[in-house]
């Protein structure tokens, strides 16, 4: 759990970013959702932080900048992967819904006479 103990942010931002990258790589949605909640709490804590705390945050932000770059790239790759998977899913849906008609041109329930009950 992320705790702002006075001026000390525990754990360091760098560790947080690394964990988020790893969780995203293995698609650990549960852990990512926990991290998202923790980040919101962290953000609220920082809003009321004093000058020393901000200085400490600046140091941690600097230390974590490279890991943040990696996280951004993994996120971009995930977006591309998601697009690919959506294309795969759409194609499969199309294939599942209309297979026989598309392949044979034959409709499963051809109406050869009026079926409205009026004949």
């Amino acid at each position, binding site marked *: 759990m992320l705790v702002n103990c006075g001026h000390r942010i525990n754990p360091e*931002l760098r560790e*947080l*970013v690394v964990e*988020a*990258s*790893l*969780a*995203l*790589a*293995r*698609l*650990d*949605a549960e852990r*990512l*959702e926990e*991290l*998202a909640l923790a*980040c919101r709490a*962290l*953000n*609220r804590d*920082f*809003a009321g*932080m004093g000058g020393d705390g*901000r*200085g400490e*945050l*600046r140091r*941690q*932000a*600097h230390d*974590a*900048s490279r890991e*943040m770059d*990696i*996280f*951004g*790239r*993994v*996120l971009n*790759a*995930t977006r*591309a*992967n*998601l697009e*690919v*998977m*959506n*294309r*795969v*899913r759409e*194609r*499969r849906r199309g294939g599942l819904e209309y297979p*026989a008609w598309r392949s044979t041109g*034959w409709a*499963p*329930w*051809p109406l*050869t*006479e009026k079926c409205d009950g009026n004949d």
Partner: protein
Amino acid sequence: MGTISSAFSLISGALDADQSALSVVSNNVANANTPGYTQEMPNWRENNPVSINGIQYGTGVSQTGATSVRDRILAERLNQQQQSAAASGTRLSALNAIQTLFTPDSGSTGSGAGDIGSDITGFFNSFSALEANPTNDALRQQVLSTATTLAGDISNAANMVNSQRAALDQEAAGVVAQVNALTAAIAQLNGQIQSTSPDKDAGVLEDQRQQDLSKLSQLIGINQITTENNGLSITTTSGQTLVSENSDSPMTTGLVNGVTHFFVGTVDITSDLSAGGGSLGGYLTARDQDIPQVLNSLDELAYGIATAVNTQNNAGTNLNGVGGTGVNPANPSLDIFNAPAAVAGSAVAMSVVMTDPNNIAAAGPAAGSGDNSNAVAMAGLGDSGIVNGGSPSNFFSNFVTMLGATVAQVQTENTAQNASVTQLQNQNNALSAVNLNDEAVAMQQLERSYQAASQVFAILNTIMASALNMGVQTAVS
């Protein structure tokens, strides 16, 4: 057709189809642990309807075989990511080995490359020491000693980097045999698959081809083109054909200017492979881009120091009262270092040619042996822009910093690419391999993960940007 017999046919057909489907399921379970096996799904076909008294009735379904659950869009995306990850991983290994050479006090290489920075300082400081007592023999010996150390470490470093380049060259050449074996296997599988399709799914054959494509993607960058009857053509990323359905075009190698080049037929595809990806792309990028940059920096350093120091020493007067060629062109040379003819090759060739310490021209032109004005000028070279406009120490420091930045950048790329490959493999396993996870569950997991990660990224990015840029505003509104 009579009604009862039609109904019986319908029921028995459904039972047969169920039985066939059970066989497919049992085949999936039996192969659950077979690497690369793709789950098969039964194909259902609606039977032709029968007409009774002018009304058509359906006659059930038949099972017409099994189709493997694979998706080429996903497989191609996975292959592309593997190509990128393999290239950056291979390049990273090569860069790490070079960076280790230039790490101070690494103590592991014996090249002394990590000591070049302190060598430079030590060499120019030896002139500062000579300023105080320009006729002192021990101080003159110290100048030659530090010069020898500096030249030796630069030369050794260049030789070590050249050795690494030669090793990369050999490893790159070794990839060709693996590539050719895989393209030949894929061509053969293409022929078998094409003779099987389109009547039925080629199942295991397609699994084998997909595995070979995956292996090939880790070696070189490729493009895939699906051809008639489920065949496949494979080209390099620049379009050079490696496999055309059931025939393959093997790669060959040959030496061009001392390094291995790669050919298909008579076409040199080396630069295409370098940019293409896979481990071969990584080897070639390190061999043809990264290492030449390192060598060029060492050459510039050696050329700058040797040329400036020689010129300055020849502008002074030695302990015997003789001026150098800068004073009188007819005089013997007072070069300290082997004079480089050109920048290229200066590092490897760097050495100390001066053997007599009395030839160090501490005195200015036509000055007495007690003068130190030229020694002062020599010491001042250490802070002058004699290497590509920068001082020797700054130039070397910048070079090491740039090398470290390049390593960090490739490390970042590689980490992200590996993460992407991990994701895709998880998705591919859920979709294609034999397990009980549903495709929808896998998709939901991917979407949830992406959305949650986007939130994490957005909040952290804002916090960090605020902290770094302004240092005050931190909360995300």
